[in-house]
């Protein structure tokens, strides 16, 4: 396995970009105002736009999922330090056990 190298600042920056994109996307979704007055093919046009808005909402959710995954990665490595420290402590304690 390759060694893990991590630049938390760069990861956080990537996460913030996704968070910001998600906010902008949600705001733009709220700005789409479907026409209520009639015109030829209105129902189909609105159905088509709604369908694509559903896709855009999915993208917004995926922004959050990937951002959360990045966040988890950052936190996981902090936790990993703790886990390794604990494992070392256990090993040290085992060293001190008198087998007699």
């Amino acid at each position, binding site marked *: *396995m*390759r*060694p*893990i*190298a*991590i*630049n938390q600042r*760069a*990861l956080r920056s*990537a996460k913030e*970009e*996704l968070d*910001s*994109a*998600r906010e*902008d*996307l949600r*705001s*733009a979704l709220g*700005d*789409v*105002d*479907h*026409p209520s*007055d*009639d*015109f*030829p*093919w*209105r*129902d*189909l046009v609105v*159905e*088509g*736009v709604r*369908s*694509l*808005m559903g*896709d*855009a909402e*999915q*993208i*917004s959710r*995926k*922004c959050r*999922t*990937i951002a959360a*995954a*990045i966040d*988890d*990665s950052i936190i*996981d490595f902090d936790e*990993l330090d703790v*886990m*390794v420290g604990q*494992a*070392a402590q256990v*090993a040290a304690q*085992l*060293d001190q056990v008198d087998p007699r």
Partner: protein
Amino acid sequence: MTRVVVDRVEVQQDQLQFGGPIGCRYHWLEPDEIDSYGDSVRRLAAKVELAADGFERTATLSEDVFAGEAADALRARAERRHEESVAVRDNLRGLGRAINAYSDVLRRHREGLEQLRAHAAALGLEIRDHRIWPPVETIAGDAPQKEVDAWERDWKAYQECFDLKIELRDARRASTRELVKALADHAGVHPDKDRQTLVPAGAHQVTFGELRREAAEEAMEAVRADDLADAAHRTVDGLKRREQGALGDLEEMVLAERPPEEIQAQATKVAAIHRELVEARVDAREADAVADREQAQASRAARDLRDAEDGTPRLVAEQTTSQPPTDLRNRLG
């Protein structure tokens, strides 16, 4: 030739008959508002592009920033999301542009109707309630020649206006095809899927081949989505087993008092597998949702086909050419 249409406004437009009043007022949503609607769709496309950029940035995080199995998995996942969001952006942009172009079509139609009204007024036809009215249908057989000539002139003027109106309608319809194509290409919606506006018609008007093809394609997509969901669940199960195994090994290593660096390496491995498992669970949930959606579409296509085969289709055939009553045309000689 018949073709399948469902839009109620278009059905209403088919009722235009020679000898009846000719509407000359634009009474639909203002083209500027439709243009704004298209703009809002394109603005949404621009925001999806920001998300696409965000995914791309994550997908291209360098090894210096983030390396290891978990990093590779995250990059691969972000790359998939990047591709998906680029496709959504392109679709939104394409449909937004088509709506903008359609607003121009309706703007031209409105201008055409204004010109038609002015033309009818110049020809001396009666305009009332935003309609151009036909001349009286009959004239006394013993009417003076001057009156007969005037009557014929009025009918010819009316015919001219009627033909202009048909031209306007047909030009608008021809331009509308671009919009309908964009809706199919970018949003996957088709006129014959719009259940609300369909009305019963005879079974002979249904394109069975098309419905069968659609039902078969939808069924195939549902099976494919189901397979993908199964594969995603198998991945989750496999990772669960790997995680349990790695945790067991870690425990044994600690109990066996292995060197700390070995324990650290094993703990790292456990953490990496766990992250993969979390992602695989998310992917599996998404795959389940897609499979459910595809199954619903397949069921709908199968239902449409069954309805058609039972002789209860919901499609209506449009008469694409108007047939003026012959008695009135004959009067024109």
